[in-house]
């Protein structure tokens, strides 16, 4: 079952990359954003919101997957949830920030948890940004643009 899920997810991921990459540019040109959340509805909405911009997205559903993709795809930004099965956001954050190959990648934590001391803990682990769910899309875009250039797709509306 695991391998099946994995394959399905892999296919989904590839399709996301494909659908988000603009026909006129090459894949490597646009910034790559890795979104990790165990609720695919959330990552899909994020990808949809970001599809208006010149960025590519990868959507993962659990922490372990995020760690793998961070290594292999070398995204320019990671946005992750905290509470997830199979490797939560904190372990993803710790892994990414411990690995010399990934530690330069900024990580934004997007969580529904409201713990006053949580930010301190995440910051100490190396989190670069912190947002509370539900987040208004303007606030999300503002936070993302602190780390990657968000260039609006002009040609698509034409």
């Amino acid at each position: 079952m695991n391998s099946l899920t994995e394959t399905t997810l892999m296919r989904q991921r590839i399709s996301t990359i494909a659908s988000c990459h603009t026909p006129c540019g090459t894949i490597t040109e646009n910034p790559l954003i890795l979104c990790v959340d165990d609720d695919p509805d959330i990552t899909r909405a994020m990808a949809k919101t970001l599809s208006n911009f010149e960025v590519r997205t990868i959507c993962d559903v659990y922490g372990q997957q995020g760690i793998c993709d961070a290594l292999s795809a070398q995204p320019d930004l990671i946005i992750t949830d905290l509470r997830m099965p199979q490797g939560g956001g904190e372990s993803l954050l710790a892994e990414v920030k411990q690995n010399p190959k990934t530690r330069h990648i900024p990580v934004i934590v997007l969580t529904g948890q409201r713990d006053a001391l949580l930010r301190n803990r995440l910051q100490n682990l190396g989190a670069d940004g912190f947002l509370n769910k539900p987040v208004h899309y303007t606030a999300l875009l503002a936070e993302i643009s602190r780390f990657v250039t968000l260039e609006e797709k002009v040609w698509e509306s034409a």
Partner: protein
Amino acid sequence: METKGTRVLLIEDDPEDYQLIRRSVGKIQSPHELHWADSLTGGLAKLASSDFDVVLTDLNLADCHGLEAVRAIRACNSSVAIVVMTTLDDSETEFESLNVGAQDFLVKSEATSTTLARTIHHAIHRQQNLIEIERLLAEVNANRELLSEQKMLLESKNRRLRKIYKTAHRFVDNVSHEFRTPLTVIKDYVSLVREGMVGAINEEQAHMLDIVGVRADDLNNMVDDMLDVSKLESGLLGAWRRDCRLTDIIQSIRPALEKKAEVKAICFEIAVAESLPKLYCDGEKVGRVIINLVTNAMKFCGEPGRVRLWATENADQHEVVVGVTDNGAGIDEDGLAQLFQRFKQLETNIKSSTKGFGLGLNIAKELVELNFGQMHVASRLKEGSTFSFTIPLAEPLEVLRRYMDRLQCARNGSSVVSLVWAKIQDSASDTGAEDADTFFNFLLRRNDLLFRCGQHKWLFVLPTRTEVDQFLARAEQEFEKTNRNRPYGPLPSFAMNIAGSWRLSTHRDVILEYFRNATGTARGPSVESCEARSCSLAESLPLN
């Protein structure tokens, strides 16, 4: 007993002695009713068939000899008083008789009416006392058993309640969190459709989607309120206080509030100057207060509704006043008094305050106090109401002063404050210093404060004395743990030293003075001299 006469049973096998006693008893002034048995068996039979107050018994009976008679009588009747009549002056037997159940003894030849009356009276009295003592003792024992039984019951009940409470608390937390995910999805997708990202929509559709969004925001605020109440009740509501800009706080909550105003056709104005000085607070909590006050104002404003969010600096008090003014019907004096009563109730009974003015205002007040501020309300009938609150400026001394006020309030003045310095090497890089700052912040627990005094020095304020050593140990542990997880170079090493511990009730001003000197000098030329002073000051003020 005196009224119906004292019933006396004499067990005596010598008829002459009986006559002697009978005469003496007859002369006693108070009424005495004498019955006679000439053997122990006969006496015991009488004793069994009717009530007597006292038994006078000889020890030389035909069917029994010596103290056995006393034992037999006592075994037959536990409540009657027993007086032993002896012929000889045998003190050993006399005293022994007391041990086996008699109350007194009397030499027959000395049995005048006076001595007999007195002996009988005392024996009865003594026996009554004894019975009373035994009764009380039995009661005490029974109560003790009952108590220990109840204690066990209470303990197990307590354990159960604690468990249930914990479960309930965790349940609220989990439910709130579980709410958050679908809420997030609803918000996200409504936004996507509303912003036309999946196709054009008409004006009416846009308006309806706005309503959905606003209602989802309301629900999200309720979840926040619920979480806060749950944490308040369990004493777990903490704050992440730091230097904040009010405009930044407002910026993050602005879209939702403006959307709400738009949907409800309320004129919502934000008059907050960029130039306001920095505040010291938990930005998220202050944001929640503003959301609650604005939401409340939008609920009670007039027609057409006007709500104004404003802020002014109150330099004298080292604080900023943030207010929300509406053009509603206003609250009369009774209402205002009630409003504050409800605020008061919050400390003792949160549940009773969920109705009426709602959870929002009550929580807002708690959150304001958590940030060392105060809540105010002013209202004029038919003109509107203004709810306002204060937040201290980001001035360490002012923050410490308010922190101590709050601590003293919360703990009835019996609290202790410890100051702990943390210092990294002057040669540490800027990045290193920032990492250390993050690390020191990470060490904070609820009710701890941290001040940065210059580039390489921090001051922890801990609301305890006994746990300072634990704090130092924890800092050491976490330092090693954090360093193990940092391949990109270790944190700069730091030294911590305890400046001292003081009782708030007696040394409040001393702490402030020390803090003023310490933080003042830290910015100046000599950090070392400041530290040296700190030690001597601490030594001169042993905690007592």
